[in-house]
Structure formats: structure tokens, C-alpha cells
């Protein structure tokens, strides 16, 4: 029974023979080597997967829509998946052995988990693009809300230019203030140390748990009350938000720089600052850039701390140091609450622009962390530079560098019977 499926499998020796023929070389007298890849997911395996999925789908379809009065896609999926898993296990158990069946089923569960995790993100992206894209015109990007008419059939609904300028200015100022402070704090915690290490780390942890609105209230009470609303006040609040994010990210990255390197530096008579500057930071460079940009991405999207600090504005104000400014997040928040459809649309446009900005920062993070070494023709060695930070567990940020491939296959026993080589039972 098990042999019947074998013709589906690619005869692995065939490729070698074809290669030899293509080279025009006389076919060797010796038997061509039969190459095996024990972990390969063969076309026949894909077939098994597809057929199992299809038959479990069919079973549930009959059960769900024909035999019972159930309805709804969610219920369908919830019923379909367990039946699929059970069937998949059974089929693999019959075709191969218990080990393969367990491996495949667990692999499927993990893959489903990954898909489940991706779903909200994909849906969110689709939603924002669907609502915001139609109005995302050059006009919207180059006009403020000055002169916009808040009536249902207004032709001039205004644009997001003032908010875009405001967001960029506020985030840049926040970065200039926050990044050096954050990196220095991380260096203090991880490299310098001393009596206050623990309390500083506790404070940073507490800060990262502080609600963003509290940062806004804080800046409101110590700055805005004395100097009035301004983009700069918003930037101060954002700096408070991005500081703990970057500090913790940087600390993680510094932690995984191997201590051997610090010792080597000290043994070369380097002063402490030199060890940090010339050895630790360059080694952690890619992770450092990633954590900084992640912090900036977090700050770009913040709304709560801006409400009480920049106040919002419908006209262009390019001076962040005086008068209220607008920001994309704040504009989206305000517009979506309005009772006029065209104005709500503008809010979605604002949200979409914000979304694209955050996305651009993420892409920049990936490009910078993977591309810096390559610029000077050192591509081949980036891996080894990273290998110093790679193997230590617990660094979520470094894992960013390992590319999109997620290891979802579970390790099969390499000495277990190979599906293609087994004896028929």
C-alpha cells in the first residue's frame, strides 16, 4: 500500500544522469550516486499535504453546510483545522512512520501559529490602505487644512502637509535628545556599572511601562505651562517615550557582545571609553542601529503625549519652538472623531502616511543593519562579525538580522528512516 505513492517522488538519481548528459560527457560506467536529502519536503509531500487539506475541507464542508445548520467562516476554520491535523497525522502515519507523522503535525501547528500571528498585521495593513489610499494624492500631501471646508460636499477637504512637517520635526528633535541619552544610559548599565546600575535599570524598566499619556502630562506641567504649546514640547515628550525603548534594546545588544573582546581590548591597554567606542559599539553596530530605529518608529506613532504638548493646528507651522503644531497621529485621532465623511477620510489618509513612514523606518533599519558592512566590500565577513552576537539567546533584536526565514520545521531524527528509502511494510 505504501509503495503506491512512490512514483510521485522524484527519482533523485535522475538529475545526476541528466547533468552528465548535458555536459556531453560519456555516462560513467559506475552507478550514478543516489543523493538523498533527508529533510527535503518533496513534491510528493506537498501532494500529501494538499490532498489532506482538501479532503479535510470537504469533510467539514459536508458536515458544516449540508448536515448541520452551522454557518460562519470562523466556525468553519475552527472545525477544519483539528480535522486536518488528525487526518494529516493519520496519513503520514500510514505512509511513513510515527516519527514523521508527529514531526509533520507539529510543524503544521507551528506554521498555523505563524499565519495566525501574521493575520492581524495583514488585515490592519489592508484596512488602512483601503480607507486611506483613495485620498492619498499629491494635493493631500502638499496642502494644509487652511481654508478647508468642513461641509459634507466640500471640494476642499484639506491635506496633511502641516502634520507631516510637524511629525518629522518633532521626531527628529526627540531623536537628537533621546538617542544619545538612551545609548549612554545603556552603556552605563552594561559597560560602566557601579553602585547605581541596578537602580538605573529599574528606572528604565519602569519608564518603559509608563503610560505615554503620563509623559505628556509631565511635559505639560513642567514645560507647556511655562512656555506654551510647541512642537518642541511634543519632542520632549516623545524623547521620554523613545528613551527606555532604545536603552533596553541597546542594553540587550551590548550584553551579547562577547566578553572576550572587552578583555582583548583591555589587554591591549585600551582605556575603558576606548573599549566601548572602538570595540563594543562597532561589534554591536547592526543591532544598535536596529534598536535605535525601532525606538524612533515607536515615537513616530505616539498620539497621547502630543495632545497636551503640541495641541494641534490646522495651519502650517514650521517653527517647532513656538506656537502649536500638528502631527500625523494627532491629526488622524482628531479627524476620525469628526461627523463629516470627507474629514474622516482625511484622518485615514493621515494614518496611511504615518503607516508608510513607520514602514520606511523599518526598511531603513533592515537596510542599514545588513548593508553597512557591504558598502566597503566586506560583505563576506558580515556573518562572522555577527556570529559574535548571534549565538547568545535572548536577543530579540539580533534575530531581526537573521532574515525572514523562520525555522518552523522541527528537527527530525537524522538517523530515522528516510521516507524515500523505507521498506514497504
Amino acid at each position: 500500500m505504501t509503495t503506491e505513492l512512490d512514483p510521485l517522488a522524484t527519482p533523485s538519481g535522475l538529475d545526476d544522469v541528466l547533468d552528465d548528459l548535458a555536459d556531453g560527457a560519456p555516462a560513467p560506467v559506475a552507478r550514478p550516486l543516489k543523493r538523498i536529502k533527508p529533510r527535503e519536503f518533496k513534491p510528493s509531500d506537498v501532494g500529501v499535504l494538499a490532498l489532506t487539506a482538501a479532503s479535510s475541507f470537504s469533510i467539514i464542508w459536508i458536515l458544516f453546510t449540508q448536515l448541520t445548520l452551522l454557518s460562519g467562516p470562523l466556525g468553519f476554520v475552527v472545525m477544519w483545522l483539528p480535522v486536518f491535523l488528525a487526518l494529516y497525522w493519520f496519513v503520514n502515519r500510514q505512509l511513513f512512520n510515527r516519527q514523521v507523522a508527529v514531526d509533520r503535525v507539529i510543524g503544521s501547528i507551528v506554521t498555523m501559529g505563524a499565519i495566525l500571528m501574521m493575520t492581524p498585521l495583514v488585515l490592519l495593513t489592508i484596512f488602512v490602505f483601503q480607507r486611506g489610499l483613495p485620498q492619498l494624492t499629491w494635493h493631500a500631501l502638499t496642502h494644509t487644512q487652511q481654508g478647508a471646508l468642513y461641509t459634507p460636499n466640500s471640494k476642499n477637504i484639506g491635506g496633511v502637509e502641516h502634520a507631516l512637517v510637524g511629525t518629522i520635526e518633532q521626531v527628529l528633535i526627540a531623536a537628537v535628545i533621546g538617542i544619545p541619552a538612551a545609548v549612554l544610559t545603556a552603556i552605563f548599565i552594561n559597560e560602566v556599572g557601579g553602585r547605581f546600575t541596578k537602580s538605573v535599570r529599574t528606572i528604565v524598566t519602569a519608564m518603559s511601562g509608563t503610560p505615554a499619556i503620563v509623559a505628556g502630562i509631565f511635559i505639560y506641567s513642567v514645560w507647556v505651562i511655562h512656555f506654551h504649546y510647541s512642537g518642541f514640547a511634543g519632542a520632549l515628550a516623545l524623547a521620554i517615550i523613545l528613551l527606555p525603548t532604545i536603552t533596553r534594546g541597546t542594553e540587550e545588544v551590548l550584553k551579547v557582545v562577547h566578553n572576550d573582546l572587552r578583555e582583548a581590548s583591555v589587554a591591549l591597554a585600551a582605556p575603558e571609553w576606548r573599549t566601548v567606542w572602538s570595540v563594543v559599539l562597532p561589534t554591536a553596530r547592526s543591532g544598535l542601529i536596529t534598536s535605535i530605529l525601532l525606538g524612533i518608529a515607536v515615537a513616530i506613532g505616539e498620539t497621547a503625549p502630543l495632545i497636551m504638548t503640541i495641541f494641534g493646528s490646522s495651519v502650517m507651522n514650521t517653527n517647532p519652538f513656538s506656537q502649536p503644531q500638528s502631527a500625523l497621529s494627532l491629526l488622524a485621532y482628531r479627524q476620525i472623531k469628526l461627523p463629516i465623511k470627507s474629514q474622516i477620510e482625511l484622518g485615514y489618509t493621515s494614518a496611511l502616511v504615518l503607516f508608510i513612514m513607520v514602514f520606511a523606518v523599518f526598511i531603513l533599519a533592515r537596510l542599514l543593519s545588513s548593508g553597512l558592512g557591504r558598502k566597503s566590500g566586506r560583505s563576506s565577513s558580515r556573518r562572522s562579525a555577527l556570529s559574535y552576537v548571534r549565538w547568545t539567546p535572548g536577543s530579540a533584536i539580533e534575530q531581526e538580522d537573521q532574515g525572514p526565514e523562520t525555522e518552523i520545521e522541527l528537527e527530525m531524527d537524522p538517523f530515522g528512516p528516510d521516507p524515500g528509502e523505507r521498506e514497504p511494510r
Partner: protein
Amino acid sequence: MTTQIDGEDHKLVATSHDPSVAESLRVDGVTAAEIEAKGVHAWFGERMVLEDINLVMERTRVTALIGPSGCGKSTFLRILNRMHEIVPSASLAGQVELDGDDIYDPNQRAATVRRHIGMVFQRPNPFPAMTVKDNVLAGLRFNRIRSNRKDEIVEEALTKAGLWSEVRDRLGNLGGALSGGQQQRLCIARALAVKPAVLLMDEPCSALDPGSTLRIEQTVKEIADEVTVVIVTHNMQQALRVSDKTAFFLAQDGNPGYIVEAGPTTQIFESPSDPRTADYVNGRFG
């Protein structure tokens, strides 16, 4: 080598800001110095790990430190270039003299000591973010030594470490891209580039394959002409092959480590005076 720092004459100290001094350090041939431990004791916290170590490591000779794990060889080695003190709980007593100057003298800066007494570690640790060339020059850079003959220094150091022919075309590659054995020789070149008087090696071959080990041993023999080498090894044959003098360390039943016997390597291996040494070098324990 005689220059001054903080207004005080000291043989050891060289002001790194003075390029002429830095150059002279590099130019003259033999810089090796004798290093001597006098009554060295060491503690981690309250636990004494070394007791009364007296050992002379002669100029331009290779001294091997052998003994079972945990007997304090590495601690002793790290005392010799003041790396011991970077462990917060560590303390020590006694003197270590480099050509007669106590390296633990209060006027002595640890960084200066470490520049004259280089170190190679158990695991190859080239700086992964630096090129091969920058790795070799790291010591000069860290000590702000300016030089207009950096290329020569790189070639010289790499040649001494037996690596030049393999990496001459790859000086711009990152140090981490080399093989394990090459990385370790790069670390040796990095340590040699600042012309140390003494080179300490802490089991430099334990992470390497036999071929690379042989290359390193060859390198050790060659550089011993101009630098005093102190090498910790677990490999009896290695000690026999490379060293002129051997010190056998032992720590028993949780007591601090001490030197059972030290002397010319041939004597330690062929006619040791202490039965424990004989047992150890013949592989009967440890």
C-alpha cells in the same frame, strides 16, 4: 625605553603622546624583558587561590605553566599583566617585577603595564568589526601611537605571527572572516604589533585543530628571540616542544595553588625531583 610620565622617571612608562618615543619603541630590535614573580598570593573574595608563587621568567625564553585545571595557572598569568584586577572581587599580594620595576607600584598605570606585557587568550578573539589590518593596528590606535610606517608594522607583525603570506591580499577583510587558527595568529600579531616585552599566552591552542596548533607553536618558537613568552598549556607535549622552562602548578583539596617544581623543561620532564611532577608529566593524574 626610559621615558617619564606624571613627572616621575620610570623605566616602564612611555608617554604614548610622544611620537618619537613611540617610534623608538618600535625601531630598536630586542625589547624583551625578564619578568619575575616574588611571593605572589591571590584571592577571589576571601578564597585564596594562589599561595607564595616565586618564579623567574627569563628574557627571550619560553616559560610553560602546566598543571591540572583549577590550579591557578591562568590567574597567575593574568596577574602578570594586571588583568587579574578587573575582576571585582579579586585581590593579590606580593610583587611582579618587569626588569626590576614593580608593575603593581602605585605610580604605575595598568594600561602602561598591559602595553608592555601583551596577552593572547584561549579563544581567538579578533575584533570582528575591524579589518585584519585594523586588528593588527588596534594596540597602536588604542594607545594613540601615531606612526607613518603602519604598513610596515602590519607586515612585520603578521610575518612574525606566521600569517602574512596567508592574508597579505585580504588585509581589508574583517578579522572574523579568517579561520580559527588564522584568527589566533592574528591575535598574536595584534599583541606583537605594539612590541611588548613579554607575551602571555593562555592556552592559545586549546580551541584549535592540530595543524593550527603546530603553526602556533612554530610561531612561539620564532618570536621567542625578541619577546619573553609565558604560556599556559594543558598539553604536556606542547610544553615539551616549545618551552625552555616549565613550572608545575598544583592545587589540592581546595587549598590554594602553588608551584610544586620549576626548572628547565628537560629536567622537569625527564628527571623531576618531586614524585607528583613525575606523575603529572607522565599522565598518571590531572
